[in-house]
């Protein structure tokens, strides 16, 4: 006998038919159609994992008083102003209501809530680490789209994600303003996973998804996650966690988990047996790994929420086809196929400082330069920064080579000090300058005296923890001489992040004052040599 169906928001014949189709599909086991383990359609995956627990999430979060809701991270000094604030209330991540629903086997089954207890457990994990937030849920219609009120939202499900044009615009702006979207393919459904990659790729054409490298802060911010275990799938991951992120500046604006997290966090793994019996191939982290990732996710949202606030401020760009007065220093930044805009707003902070500390006329608008297209001859100073892997085209290589051969300076920065960019920078610079060796600039080098006398520097806590003893407060810059002139400078540790007066959790670089001094000296050296 057909189970009774009840629709939450029946709208049309199509929506009336959908649950029936779902029900029919669910009654057929194993699944007969489609790619092996994928199912004939996403409806094959539409099964609720467990019943809601009694503890209810607060609903209807739409606005309210705008407060600094983000506490300091563990182990980091709490600013005096933070200590005086009342306890932060409130919300870290809201679960987004989306999609359709149906009553299947007398259970209300909704796209957005297939793992109904995931948020509850996520917040319990956060609470255990000292982050006291309330679980909540919201619809996209009710949502405030204000990162200060809600730093992150969770989008979980198994079926294809779709948004209206209005929702797309508002979600995009939310992320650009500093918000974060976490997508959890709760059972590892390829339908949800692939559609979420596509919808956010389309939403952010200027960026693209990248696999997070093993040294990414997400994997180390609370505990070091070097290895994970998978409940289902994961054969090709070699025991490593697998997340894809869409960078906005140096933070992840959209995080997609190909492997299910929610059920693992909630400890509800029986659903995977059911799915496998149907002939589907679910993908999910084990309970232990899902909880470990959940523990790291909360501080990452908190820490990089502050970064989002700072980097999300609007920045005026100069146009590469606008000729600045020749007497002005122009900060030209190279666009490449990696995440080239790692620290939005940082250059302006540095240039303001340079303008204040020196007599150099400075154009405060940085210019982004496409080496494949733009004429670089007007910019004797090129800044090249990134977060992850990148590859230069032959044209870009020629342009960079010509730039330094003609007396220009190229400054390369490893934003956040991650290994992936470092390896890419070493590899690609060897292509650009195959005959030249990057050498450590000695402490006595003129670059450390060109404006400020820099005898020692302060590194970020993460770098101090690992390398403090070896670095001994000495700046680390490598350089290449072309025709006996220092023309290429590479900083393997992040200088640029320090120009923004914001803390980048687990960044391996220089603290703000040291970073600014180094930045000003580098520009002054480039201008005078």
């Amino acid at each position, binding site marked *: 006998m057909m189970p009774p169906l009840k629709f939450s928001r029946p709208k049309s014949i199509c929506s009336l038919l959908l649950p029936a189709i779902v029900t029919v599909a669910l009654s057929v086991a194993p699944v007969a159609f489609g790619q092996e383990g994928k199912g004939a359609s996403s409806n094959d995956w539409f099964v609720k994992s467990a019943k809601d627990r009694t503890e209810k999430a607060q609903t209807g979060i739409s606005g309210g008083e705008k407060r600094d809701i983000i506490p300091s991270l563990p182990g980091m000094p709490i600013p005096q102003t933070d200590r005086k604030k009342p306890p932060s209330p409130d919300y870290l991540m809201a679960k987004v209501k989306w999609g359709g629903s149906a009553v299947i086997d007398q259970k209300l089954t909704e796209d957005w809530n297939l793992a109904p207890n995931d948020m509850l457990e996520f917040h319990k994990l956060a609470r255990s680490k000292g982050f006291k937030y309330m679980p909540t849920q919201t619809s996209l219609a009710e949502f405030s789209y204000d990162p200060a009120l809600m730093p992150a939202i969770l989008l979980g499900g198994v079926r294809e994600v779709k948004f209206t044009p209005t929702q797309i615009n508002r979600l995009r702006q939310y992320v650009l303003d500093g918000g974060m979207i976490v997508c959890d393919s709760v059972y590892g459904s390829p339908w949800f996973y692939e559609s979420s990659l596509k919808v956010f790729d389309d939403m952010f054409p200027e960026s693209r998804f990248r696999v997070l490298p093993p*040294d990414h802060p997400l994997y180390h911010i609370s505990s070091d996650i070097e290895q994970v275990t998978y409940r289902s799938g994961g054969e090709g991951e070699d025991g490593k966690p697998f997340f894809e992120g869409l960078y906005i500046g140096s933070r992840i604006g959209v995080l997609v988990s190909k492997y299910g997290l929610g059920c693992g966090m909630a400890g509800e793994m029986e659903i995977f047996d059911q799915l496998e019996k149907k002939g589907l191939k679910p993908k999910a982290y084990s309970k232990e790994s899902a909880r470990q990732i959940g523990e790291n996710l909360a501080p990452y949202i908190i820490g990089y929420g502050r970064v989002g606030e700072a980097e999300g401020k609007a920045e005026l760009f100069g146009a590469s086809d606008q000729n600045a007065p020749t007497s002005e220093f122009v900060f030209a930044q190279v666009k490449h196929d990696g995440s080239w805009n790692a620290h939005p707003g940082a250059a302006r902070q540095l240039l303001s400082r340079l303008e204040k500390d020196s007599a150099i006329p400075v154009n405060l608008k940085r210019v982004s330069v496409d080496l494949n297209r733009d004429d670089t001859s007007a910019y004797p100073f090129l800044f090249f920064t990134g977060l992850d892997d990148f590859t230069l085209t032959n044209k870009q290589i020629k342009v960079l080579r010509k730039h330094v051969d003609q007396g220009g300076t190229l400054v390369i920065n490893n934003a956040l*000090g991650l*290994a992936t960019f*470092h390896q890419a920078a*070493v590899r690609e610079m060897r292509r650009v300058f*195959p*005959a*030249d*060796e*990057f*050498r*450590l*600039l*000695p402490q006595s080098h003129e670059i450390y005296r060109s404006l400020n006398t820099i005898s020692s520097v302060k590194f970020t806590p993460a770098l101090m923890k*690992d*390398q403090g003893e*070896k*670095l001994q407060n*000495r700046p*680390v810059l*490598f350089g290449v001489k072309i025709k006996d002139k220092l023309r290429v400078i*590479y900083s*393997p540790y992040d200088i640029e992040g320090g120009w923004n007066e914001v803390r980048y959790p687990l960044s*391996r670089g220089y603290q703000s004052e040291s970073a600014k001094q180094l930045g000003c000296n580098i520009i002054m050296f480039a201008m005078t040599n």
Partner: protein
Amino acid sequence: MMTDSDLEQLIAAWLDGRIGAAASEALQQELRGSAKARAIFQRFAQLDAVLRETADTENFGAISQASGSSVSIPKPIPATTRYAKALVAIAAVIIVVFTATYYFQHVKTDRNIARIKGLNGTLTWIGDGGQIVQGSASPQTETRWSNVLSEGAELPGGTIEGMAPDSWFELEFHDGSTSMISGDSILTFSDRGQKELRLKQGRFSADVMPQPAGKPMLIHTPAAVLEVIGTQFDVEAGPVSTMLYVREGKVQIGRVDDGKTVVVPAGHRVVVATGRAMLLLPVTPDRTWAQTPFWENISTSGDPDSMATQETRDDDGAHNLVLSEEPARLPAQDAGYTIRPGDVFEVRYDWLGGIWWTDQDQIAIKLFTTDNDLISGTPTTFATLLSGPSTAAGVYETASGSSTVPATEARKRLFVAIDTQDGAGELHGVAHLDNFQLEVTHFPELGSPRLDDFQLQGADFSDPPPEPTAAIIIGGSLRNGDFNRK
């Protein structure tokens, strides 16, 4: 110039078959140098023939012998009647005419079996009757034997020997079959209804017309016997082995040791030697420059469609680069490497001197840069690495050399050319080169720590002298160093 009387005595002795070696040499020299002497010789020979015929007819006595002539001239003639003398005289004239015609039209031409189609360098022909003729395609002084070993001259068989690496000799049999030896090769040839050749050593190639049924061309080498019906093929014979490459048709080759035979079809080769399996190996076609990745012919007079590599005469069973002293061939490639200060380049390769390659010729590896970092730019050669003369004829030998790059060439693109260096004045020598390898060892300058040695998560600022690092730029399949890629 000898007197007529002396000449007649020598001719009579030759016709009698009692001439000595020195006298025979003197006679031949005189015949070569004097038209009058040849006329006298002809007259005596005709008379000799007439007298033989007459003697046979009139049973004057057993004066014909198995070889040569034994008639002495003049001889006393018995007295007869006038009538009888007149009859004899008439008969003699008739016989002279027929005999002379026969002698020149049949006897003489039947002894020649082939014509010299072309030749080069110093050659020796040991002809019929054991006479030894040494000649050259371009004699500096005209000798009386010049026209014996000259293009178009007819030969009655014998042994031809190339006396120098640049020697070659092409023969055309009367049926149109051609054969050619090159270099230090020795070939004996004959045709008495069945062509039979003996290649004692060296390289031989032939284009054989269809032979009479049951009478294939036979080619003997120290190690093998070949039976040829009609085909094109190359043979290379050594003291203990013979290589046969059949271009068209098929050739049966048999091993002398055990009589084992194998039929080699077109496009295949086999090596016959004692104790070695007679395996048929397919020979892939020669490849042009366009079919030889990474390498190009940078000679301004070069033909891009000319052969770049071939499989025959290869070192390792695949393709080898064919080099020539001729200016139309200069293989080179962009090594895909930018020179760093402190680089040391080392080249290593196997090579083999081929046809017309002299003992003084050498392979010359040239390392160069250009004014625009393109291979077509104006070159600056900063190192020429010579192979040295060949030390082992007929087999591949290994050569190597190294060069430290001058500081002036740093930061420029590296190019490498495989050239030849002439040593004997001729510019036709061919050589084969295989398994080319170019390696660079970089000796970093001392100074501050290098980024290459820097560990992002383990920075250490000690400054040990950096170790030199070696890397292969060209070698094996890398940039087609083995010439096998296409």
